[in-house]
């Protein structure tokens, strides 16, 4: 190379919007999130008018619709909001960390790791409290993250497709081992069955509160490593030249990822594909700017998850489709579209 080109003609620079457009977009996304939250409380086996929703929140009475809202729809919506936000940021984080556009906590087997650990905790060790089994979920997610990163590493750096295959393989093995445990202890695992399908139905808010501090810590960590991750997107050498400490950034990012995925899985079970497409959409809107990608992911991912959940409620009315099935049908085409792009490995 004889000339050093400082011009960067990637699609990023041409379309990076100014701060004002980013803020406007985020405000619009927040409005959309609010609308989806209201719809999620309104729509179900019976549609409840917005005025009743308002009364249920601020003028409680013994009305049957209010009961449905307070005991079923509101917890479901809040769980969707928390789990969605966690999975969205986890997706953005793992894509930045691995520089792999196909990365998703579900595809890479992180959900399977957390689920297997929870299955062991609840089924074999008799841990029934989420404050106990969440530690297993964190450990499971952490171990699989480290395994997949090690397996996906080649001499030339990370190979996106090898990493995806490694994740699929680890996930398949853990799911097989999980079903072996379930089939040998049918009684103990009766409670696990609905949890394993990946759903936000019937999860009381008591499950959310112990996890929330961990998710908050993870978000702070994610924002803290956003700058170094931006620099690392250009390659490790350039990042080091800019003063980024690679090892520290990776460790912090992995801790954040573990808390997000482990926490979300402990609450809702494995919900795949939610973290795959949201960071891509965020990147199209804000350009390659990690902090903004995180901010958009926090807002956009719950929209996707709750919209999928609402879709699952109305599409086969009166029966319901679990949200994990809907997100697979929305997410898998996105995976296929991503791999069909010309530069499948570019991020």
């Amino acid at each position: 190379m004889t000339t050093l080109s400082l011009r960067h003609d990637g699609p990023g620079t041409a379309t990076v919007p100014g701060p004002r457009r980013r803020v406007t977009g985020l405000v619009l996304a927040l409005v959309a999130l609010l609308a989806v939250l209201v719809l999620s409380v309104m729509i179900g086996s019976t549609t409840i008018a917005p005025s009743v929703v308002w009364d249920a929140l601020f003028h409680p009475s013994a009305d049957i619709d209010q009961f449905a809202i307070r005991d079923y729809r509101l917890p479901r919506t809040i769980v969707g909001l928390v789990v969605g936000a966690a999975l969205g940021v986890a997706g953005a984080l793992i894509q930045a960390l691995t520089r792999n556009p196909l990365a998703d906590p579900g595809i890479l087997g992180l959900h399977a790791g957390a689920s297997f650990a929870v299955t062991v905790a609840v089924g074999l060790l008799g841990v029934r409290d989420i404050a106990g089994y969440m530690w297993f979920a964190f450990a499971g997610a952490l171990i699989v993250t480290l395994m997949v990163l090690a397996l996906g590493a080649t001499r030339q750096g990370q190979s996106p497709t090898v990493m995806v295959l490694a994740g699929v393989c680890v996930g398949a093995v853990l799911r097989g081992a999980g079903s072996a445990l379930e089939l040998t202890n049918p009684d103990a695992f009766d409670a696990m069955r609905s949890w394993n399908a990946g759903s936000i139905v019937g999860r009381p808010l008591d499950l959310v509160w112990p996890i929330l501090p961990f998710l908050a810590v993870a978000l702070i960590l994610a924002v803290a490593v956003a700058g170094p991750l931006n620099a690392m997107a250009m390659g490790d050498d350039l990042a080091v030249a800019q003063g980024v400490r690679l090892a520290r950034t990776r460790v912090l990012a992995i801790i954040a990822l573990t808390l997000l995925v482990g926490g979300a899985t402990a609450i809702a079970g494995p919900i795949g594909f939610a973290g795959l497409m949201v960071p891509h959409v965020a990147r199209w809107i804000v350009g390659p700017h990690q902090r903004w990608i995180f901010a958009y992911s926090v807002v956009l991912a719950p929209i996707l998850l709750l919209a999928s959940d609402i879709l699952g409620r109305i599409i086969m009315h009166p029966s319901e489709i679990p949200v994990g099935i809907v997100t697979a049908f929305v997410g898998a085409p996105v995976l296929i579209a991503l791999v069909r792009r010309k530069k499948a490995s570019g991020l």
Partner: protein
Amino acid sequence: MDFGRRVLVLRHRRISVRLERRSVVVCAVLALAAAGMAVLALMTGSYQLSPGQVVSALTGGETGLVHDIVVEWRLPRVAAALVFGAALGVSGAVFQSMLRNPLADPGIIGFSQGSYTGALIVILVVNGTYMQLVGGALLGGMATAVAVYVLAHRGGVQGFRLIVVGIGLSAMLDSLNTWLILQADLEVAMAAAAWGAGSLNGVSWDQVVLGGACITVLLLLAGMLSRPMRQLELGDDAAASQGVRASPVRLGLIVVGVALTATVTAASGPIAFISLLAPQIARRLTRTAGITLAPAAFVGALLCLAADYIAQHIAPTPLPVGIITIMLGGGYLGWLLFTEARK
């Protein structure tokens, strides 16, 4: 031509067969091991038998309880494990050779899930017979194969793109299958779910005979296609220069490979990873450069039988054989990725 490998040539009028000596020896050893494993599987159970009793029951020397236990109860399962394992091994060998990728397993790229979807629809909609299940599984598998191929095609089919497309489709089909099972009545759903893990528990003589007949025909077809298949591994142009027409051969290979998987899936559900493991183990045992069909069939049969034996006896309650194969396959896959990455 002599490539330094000892070759046996059998000639009878216009037909001649070239056999590599090492492959023949390996196949013979594998067949012996499978026979020993079969006797062990026929002996073991809540009513223990001696090897002598098993052999005499098989040769018709026993009557009464021992005959019933060996021939009516245990033999269908052992025969199914052998036949289905061989079918899965060959199916995997066909796809790995055609896609030139050691990870091209019908279970990873969605063909097994598609077969399972087809079979599930037949169960839930018409509560069909075994042959209708085979038909449904075949249609589901073929439709998935076509979809994967078309979606992965972009100025040629690149191996890794095909695999990632297959992973995506298999995730969707998995979800569809979960949902289909949720829709069914509890009794049907429970049977379908146990079957979905890949189990030889409910296999009957009818299925073994019918499935075995289908599989025999398919294995013969695969054998006829094996020479052009090996030539296609060199690339379409090189194969064409040797008089192989790529497209019809490839179509034939896809049909045979999917049909083998579908026949097994219709009887036992998707038994994971045997089709991934068998060709690779066979290749290492025979030390051939490419994928060979016959050793893959023998390894598949032995693997499936051994895995089913472990599945039946490792836990207090018998497990589906698919659980054992998924763990074996996963361990192997991890090791493969690990060593490939270190190269």
